[in-house]
């Protein structure tokens, strides 16, 4: 099923063309990796598809124009896992995760017991229920990332956007997180994530979109599109894509 259908997306920021005529399709069950150099427009594209930035072109979500949704309705369809950042206030992890229910409650109501139960369940699901009462800004980067993922799950939207989800995580946690994404995918979630690691894209996703200077270099099935030729064009490095017998592929630089 076609979830997101965007056509002719162009976006400029201070007379600087960030995105130029991008088409973007997302189907149910996809894990799409957005790759490209720093500043190629990956994060901007995510924010346009979430309705945070307004762009030229049309973005349809569930075949309805994005402008026809309220922020609240959009939040129930797409949730966002941003890059971790510092907050100058001492929220507990539970406070932060519970904010995912904001789209589900009205102006005059407060979080219900059920909302809180959902939050606790999702904390358990990502495996950090022991950090529930810890101060968010004092836990490690990986734990913060997991807390954001818990918040995205609490939001109960089936599409999740992630901006460089493994940045700042140690090697083990990076792989655990990717494995977790694959598990969530089997439960019916659809992901779009930006990443700097071709390996991670090969491991966790089925589709790839390569952006270069705000234009699409190539897009499509991960196995046919994430080739050494494309990586050479994208990053100007020589790599070799190696297939193992178990079906996994690896990207190894040949420097």
């Amino acid at each position: 099923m076609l979830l997101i259908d965007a056509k002719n997306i162009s976006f400029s920021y201070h007379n600087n063309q960030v995105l130029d005529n991008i088409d973007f399709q997302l189907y149910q069950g996809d894990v799409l990796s957005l790759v490209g150099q720093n500043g190629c427009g990956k994060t901007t594209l995510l924010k346009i598809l979430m309705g945070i930035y307004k762009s030229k072109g049309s973005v349809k979500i569930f075949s309805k124009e994005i402008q026809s949704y309220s922020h609240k309705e959009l939040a129930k369809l797409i949730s966002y896992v941003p890059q971790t950042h510092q907050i100058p206030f001492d929220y507990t992890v539970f406070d932060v995760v519970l904010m995912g229910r904001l789209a589900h409650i009205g102006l005059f109501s407060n979080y219900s017991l059920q909302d809180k139960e959902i939050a606790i369940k999702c904390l358990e699901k990502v495996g950090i229920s022991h950090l529930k009462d810890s101060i968010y800004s004092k836990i490690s980067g990986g734990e913060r990332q997991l807390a954001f993922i818990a918040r995205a799950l609490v939001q109960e939207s089936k599409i999740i956007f992630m901006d460089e989800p493994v940045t700042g995580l140690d090697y083990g946690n990076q792989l655990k997180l990717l494995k977790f994404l694959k598990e969530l995918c089997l439960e019916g979630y659809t992901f779009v994530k930006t990443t700097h690691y071709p390996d991670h894209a090969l491991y966790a996703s089925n589709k790839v979109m390569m952006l270069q200077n705000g234009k699409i270099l190539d897009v499509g099935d991960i196995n046919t599109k994430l080739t050494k030729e494309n990586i050479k064009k994208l990053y100007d490095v020589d790599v070799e894509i190696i297939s193992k017998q178990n079906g996994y592929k690896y990207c190894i630089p040949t420097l």
Partner: protein
Amino acid sequence: MKLWVKRMTKIGFIILTIVLLFIINGSLFIGNYEINFTEYSMFIQKLIGFDSNITIEKYEMLKSVIFDIRLPRVVAAVLIGASLAISGAAFQAMFVNPLVSPGILGVLSGASFGAALGMVLGWNWFLINISTFSFGMIAVLFALSISLIYSRAKNMIILVLGGIISSSLFSALLSIVKYSADPYDSLPAITYWLMGSLSFSTSNIVWNLTLPMMIGILILLFFSKYLNALSLGDEEAKALGVDTVKVKFIVIVVATFISALSVILAGIIGWIGLIIPHIARLLFGADNKIILPISGLLGAIFLLAVDNTSRIVFSFEIPIGIVTAIIGIPIFIIVLKNAKRGF
């Protein structure tokens, strides 16, 4: 939330409410006209409909002292303390900046200019209110637009600087108004009023402003859950389903509105909007659903306590704005030491 934290919050609310009621009661009792305790309790008995030995003259006398003179002042102190503290907490969360307050953002300077202008030009009371609020609003928008010029820096200090510039501008404009004011009549009135004094809170003004201020406070309390999301940044708040433009607009207007009305009640009372939210956060964490009401209670308690103390200690009326500054500054220095991060 851990069970004990939850209990602590509940107990905290109850304790602070009891303390506030206790201080309100005490404030009605203390004053130039001495009332002894037996008289006071007999008066209360009669008031709530029981028989008591109090004479009719004495009863009427006490009723006039307590209801016409002391109660308005007490209500004013509660409203001002709560309004400034809650708007301070709301501004801090919304701008993701623990260094701002109605005073820092220029609201109080702008509002006092607006009010003084109205007084000197002899406008009626309603127009003075409008001009107070409008110039408070203009001042905060001016501070914001200065900070937006440099917004790419995303530095907390820039907004504070914007506020300082805006405050100075409106202080200068206020000086022009004062300079042109009648030096024997309106100049001393404006000067004393701006020092921050509850003695200007006469019953008429207080009862007129009580309802609007309470509505303003209530609106901010309803928006406290959105403030949590906004304090993570605009984009994240949008992704969480918050209409950031609408929420920010409402919060800025309402917080400025109640801060500006506090200026009409008692001039410029600084520091409450800055320090009280910090104290609330030190005690109860960051969740604005808790911090806003707690700040309100603490602000009311703080201002009443300061007013009572200065009334007991000094036999003459000392402007409360001066006292809050003298007490507020050392508290802020201590709190700042604990607040550390981000700036």
